[in-house]
């Protein structure tokens, strides 16, 4: 039987459990997560914020080619990782490095794409985290495929796929939702509506009442949540993941949040948004909100907060150290993984590069390195 469209539509107001002053919202419209879950989320968000700050500094030092910041979106990032079990999958975009870190990937490996060392840094299967995707929404059909395969293989795996508000306009987004619904695949789509797609505000992106409404057209329940309230996110996403795991099919969750910094270091956000808007959103800071809530309830004390800050600082120090190293690249890296078996043409080209490198390497230094290739003739 076809679902009742009413049941697929989101509530008029996004779910909030903790308001921007850090006070509980009553009556609660969802089950408030447990204290240990919230404390863990706070620790992860403090780390996520520190990670963002450190990455920004690394861009300025020329250690990262580019960094798409998720400062202000830490609640979404952390909740996306925290609601998943070890066997579940996460499909991130370029903006979701903090979610990947929260999932347990080494922060340095998380930044491999952005440092320009290689296109990708971590063990995909071990972490069950797909590579960061840059072409918008193109990862979403993959997420559906992984989820569908899991069901065919008899696993109770759930896939959580991330995308931005702008990405919802791409054809791949719509095809993914439709497939997910038709296949009844265990996928949760989390749209981080951070209000802008580079310079384009949501009003120029869609005329729909909300992005969560888009689910209904495909037969997927849509929900809206305050994206700066990690408690609400954990509740809504947790429920969606549980439903998907027990055969309830896909869900679409729209989180309302804000990107506090420019799109990337290469972007000038002052061209398209004003300081008042940014200031208004800074008063809804997701990290502060939870810190206030938990401190007031006596669930965290100064010592605990200091411990979180220390952990974050240690992570940042390790990250700085990892990225300070200039790696030596062997030309063969370029050819290693183009095909399972290199073609004769690629073997020929590798020989050419080795030859060039050998000519350029001073006598006695046998190894062919990128830093010396293409030097003096």
């Amino acid at each position, binding site marked *: 039987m076809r679902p009742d469209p009413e049941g697929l539509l989101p509530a008029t107001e996004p779910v909030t459990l903790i308001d921007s002053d850090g006070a509980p919202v009553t009556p609660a419209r969802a089950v408030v997560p447990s204290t240990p879950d919230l404390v863990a989320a706070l620790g992860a968000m403090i780390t996520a914020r520190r990670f963002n700050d450190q990455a920004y500094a690394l861009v300025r030092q020329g250690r990262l*080619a*580019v960094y798409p910041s998720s400062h202000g979106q830490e609640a979404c990032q952390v909740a996306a990782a925290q609601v998943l079990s070890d066997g579940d999958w996460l499909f991130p975009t370029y903006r979701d490095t903090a979610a990947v870190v929260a999932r347990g990937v080494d922060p340095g490996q998380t930044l491999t*794409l*952005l*440092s*320009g*060392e*290689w*296109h990708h840094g971590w063990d995909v299967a071990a972490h069950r985290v797909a590579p960061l995707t*840059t*072409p*918008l929404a*193109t990862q979403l059909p993959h997420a559906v495929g992984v989820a569908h395969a899991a069901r065919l293989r008899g696993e109770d795996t759930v896939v959580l796929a991330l995308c931005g508000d*702008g*990405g919802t*306009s*791409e*054809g*791949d987004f719509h095809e993914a939702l439709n497939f997910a619904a038709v296949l009844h695949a265990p996928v949760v789509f989390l749209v981080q509506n951070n209000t802008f*797609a*580079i*310079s*384009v505000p949501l009003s*120029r*992106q*869609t005329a729909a009442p909300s992005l969560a409404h888009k689910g209904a057209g495909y037969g997927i329940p849509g929900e809206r949540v305050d994206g700066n309230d990690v408690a609400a996110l954990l509740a809504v996403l947790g429920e969606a993941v549980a439903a998907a795991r027990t055969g309830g099919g896909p869900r679409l969750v729209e989180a309302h949040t804000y990107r506090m910094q420019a799109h990337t270091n*290469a*972007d*000038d956000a002052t*061209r*398209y948004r004003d300081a008042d808007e940014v200031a208004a959103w800074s008063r809804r800071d997701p990290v502060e909100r939870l810190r206030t809530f938990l401190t007031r309830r006596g669930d965290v004390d100064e010592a605990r907060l200091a411990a979180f800050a220390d952990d974050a600082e240690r992570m940042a120090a390790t990250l700085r150290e990892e990225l300070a190293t200039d*790696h030596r*690249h062997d*030309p063969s*890296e*370029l*050819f290693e993984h*183009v095909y399972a078996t290199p*073609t004769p*043409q*690629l073997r020929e*080209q590798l020989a050419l*590069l080795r030859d*060039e490198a050998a000519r350029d390497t001073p006598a006695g230094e046998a190894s062919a390195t*990128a830093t010396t*290739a*293409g030097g003096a*003739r």
Partner: protein
Amino acid sequence: MNEKLTMAQALNRALRDAMAADGTVSVFGEDVGRLGGVFRITDGLTAEFGEARCFDTPLAEAGIVGVAVGMAMNGMRPVVEMQFDAFAYPAFEQITSHVAKMRNRTRGQVALPMVIRVPYAGGIGGVEHHSDSSEAYFAHTPGLHVLTPSDPADAYGLLRAAIASDDPVVFLEPKKLYFGADEVDLDLPVAPIGRAVVRRPGTDATLIAYGPSVPVALDAAAAASAEGRSLQVVDVRSLQPFDDETVCRAVRSTGRAVVVAEAPGFVSVASEIAARVTERCWDALVAPVRRVTGLDIPYPPPKLEHLHLPDVDRVLDAVDDLRWETV
């Protein structure tokens, strides 16, 4: 009227002048409005011509190109921006199945005077998907014109010509050349599509290049002249239509040729050029035509891109191989 402009400014001027001259020219795409495009090529157009003529679209390349097709069918001259090379791929279906074929399918009833601008190719330290050389896909598709300028003056002239063309044009903008400045004579008549140009005279061998590889070829020619060898440099500018006449005249005058392009060489525009030159200039050639291209690999990460891209040394090595001992 001569002005010193960067290629980015020259493109911006071309759009402005075309919009001022023809009310049916309309510019749209991702972030082209208030932001002026991520490379600022459309800077100020919304302010000058209004939201109806230069506007931000939803983020959907297939939609952008598909809507442009419809607008062109109904009397407009749309100029759309694909934000980066690899982000034009979602629109590939529209470009190859419709943009390229509408005139032919309708036996000439429906023309599509539209321009698809694509910032393309590498050398800017961009991460994955920001440095693709996609020219072969487009040049391989009958029905499309494919242009790529290598300096500000050509950027201006060719974009004006592209907008004026009654056929659809894929306009590839080498992004590593966006911010190099040069003198531009804005009063020159619009250059016709389909003409190559000799950028540097020379007598010993001809380097044939286009877009981002033209400066590499010019640098190689300068270096060769220090070594006592005179290299001619031809800038193809228009990949489709291709100017066999200018290219062959140049190759015949030297008897030796090297094609320089940064796209992977296998089944490439460089292959096509080498084959055409061989077929047409066989009697004048003293050595096989050489190609210096990118490697046959997915575009590498920034720290390794220098190993992929043709550089002066590779070009000169290829020139050295042109059987100098036989004459």
